[in-house]
């Protein structure tokens, strides 16, 4: 809070008004964690906004430098705790590329499937939490029902519910349990069917529409200038998705299932809408992967690694389309057990930078709508 200033009001030219400084966070219900926004308010209108990040800085990049590649996987799945699997993926893709490994076919399909299931998990979280921030308390429970069912599937294969730790350089940790594919497919069906509940509950709701349509419009220029990515960028008409534009894993062969969901408006509603539609696409993709996995011949799901894994000298940049946007790892190796440098480009960090430009002119209530629709994870911002 700003200092208390004694003022004499209304001498001559009308009533003196004063801007109020409002700190949203670091502990505030709508920042899901410890993001802090320093707002200057004129009444309820925001004059300027400054995101202050770093409350959850854990020095991930520095820690990467003193961990071997298996240990890095464990650390990497923690910066964005809602997309753990996709985070691991970037690390192992980078290491595999440097090692020149050829991934077993089954591993590639299984990874694609798990990455898509992880994307659904992530999107469901935001499909539930966004209405919650706007005051609708029920959708999050519907979203969590689906999340629980999907997490059960993920737990059965990986043993974890959030931090899956299932990728290894050269494949996956374990093979699929018997019958898992069928159970996964059944769950995908059920989740797809019940998504209608969330949609009926909130998607067409007039109040929800009024709160989100035309609010927080991101122009294509802003998206490009700030390097926004993921559903936020696509909702603003930027048709860019690494899964299609620079296919990794098995995405190259999923061209007929993979639809890149774009919207034109760039407002909060189109971001939500984009997320909802992407969830459906991801379910389709996961199902296609399951079908493919069932049809594949017997084969390994990982490669045998040397006792001490050393990545040859060199550098590479591996980026993946994470649920929240582009997640990239720039790996520099000097031939050691540990990377010399592993730079992390996280989606949320870039995505929230635009808030300083986006928020001014909006109301405090809109701030909540915009903040929620930016779909960020604080760990992903602060790393």
């Amino acid at each position, binding site marked *: 809070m700003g200092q208390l200033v004694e003022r004499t009001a209304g001498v001559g030219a009308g009533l003196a008004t004063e801007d109020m400084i409002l700190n949203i966070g670091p502990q505030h219900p709508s920042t899901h964690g410890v993001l802090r926004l320093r707002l200057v308010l004129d009444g309820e209108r925001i004059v300027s906004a400054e995101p202050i990040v770093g409350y959850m800085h854990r020095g991930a990049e520095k820690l990467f430098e003193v961990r071997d590649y298996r240990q890095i996987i464990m650390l990497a799945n923690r910066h964005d705790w809602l997309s753990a699997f996709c985070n691991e993926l970037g690390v192992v893709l980078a290491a595999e590329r440097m090692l020149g490994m050829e991934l077993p076919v089954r591993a590639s399909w299984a990874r694609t499937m798990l990455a898509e299931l992880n994307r659904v998990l992530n999107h469901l979280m935001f499909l539930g939490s966004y209405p919650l921030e706007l005051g609708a308390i029920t959708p999050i429970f519907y979203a969590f029902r689906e999340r629980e069912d999907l997490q059960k599937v993920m737990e059965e294969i990986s043993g974890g519910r959030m931090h899956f730790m299932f990728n290894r350089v050269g494949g996956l940790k374990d093979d699929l349990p018997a019958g898992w594919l069928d159970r996964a497919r059944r769950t995908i069906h059920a989740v797809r069917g019940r998504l209608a509940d969330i949609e009926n509950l909130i998607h067409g709701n*007039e109040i929800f529409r009024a709160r989100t349509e035309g609010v927080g419009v991101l122009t294509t220029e802003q998206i490009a200038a700030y390097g926004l990515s993921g559903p936020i960028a696509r909702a603003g008409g930027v048709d860019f998705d690494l899964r299609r534009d620079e296919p990794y894993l098995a995405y190259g062969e999923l061209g007929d299932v993979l639809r890149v969901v774009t919207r034109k408006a760039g407002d909060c509603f189109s971001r939500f809408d984009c997320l909802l539609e992407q969830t459906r696409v991801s379910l389709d993709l996961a199902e296609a992967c399951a079908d493919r996995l069932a049809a594949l011949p017997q084969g390994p799901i990982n490669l045998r690694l040397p006792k001490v894994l050393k990545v040859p000298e060199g550098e590479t940049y591996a980026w993946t389309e994470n649920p929240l946007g582009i997640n990239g790892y720039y790996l520099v190796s000097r031939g050691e057990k540990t990377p010399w440098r592993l730079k992390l480009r996280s989606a949320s960090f870039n995505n929230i930078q635009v808030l300083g430009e986006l928020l001014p002119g909006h109301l405090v209530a809109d701030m909540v709508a915009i903040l929620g629709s930016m779909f960020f994870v604080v760990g992903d911002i602060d790393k």
Partner: protein
Amino acid sequence: MTTESEQQSEQQPQTGPASSDPQREPRASRDFPGMGLVKGLATTFKTMTKHAHTVQYPDQPPELPPRTRGVIALLEENCTVCMLCARECPDWCIYIDSHKETAPAPPGGGRERTRNVLDRFAIDFSLCMYCGICIEVCPFDALEWSPEFEYAEFDIKELLHEKDRLREWFWTVPAPVALDPGAPDPKEMAQAQKVADKRLTAQKAAEIVALADGGAAASGQPERSGPGRSGPAGGAEGDG
């Protein structure tokens, strides 16, 4: 950042067919005002009449899959104090103490042997990140995951569990799951298969040679091939 946006714009011409616009443009078709609210109210009302999805936890324990990473259990007898787990742990939460013991030389001759005896094996679960690397590296399967999860404490210090407690948890370790039919056969099966295949081909080769040898003299002996083929199959079973 520039790179991404450059690529994104370069991609434009290619994106035509692959990118799909939404089937329903949100603002073009508008329902009657208030329909959205009614739909929402109907959804919650419908849900209200259905059974709850949650369960009453302590009364109804959750069903956890065998791979669940609940707690790390230790089979003390298998541990050789090789320290691999403690060294590979990303946050060094495994504490191991040991001493060497010398076994006297057996009476029939030979030399005396030293072996490591485990004094302390403790895992600090307040630090543990549940990554499972220790279990992965253990060469003698002394560490395993157990789905047991009810070991919360009021004090964080109490989460440091010694080998007795870890040994107790080992009783709760489930059997490993069966794998997908797409998975490669286990090592032992694959090896046995290899041996069997080798013998089969050798047998076949021998048969061909035998046929070629005795083909002119004894071509009218069909019953010979029967016992001849069963031999190697039995041998393969014995190997397995």
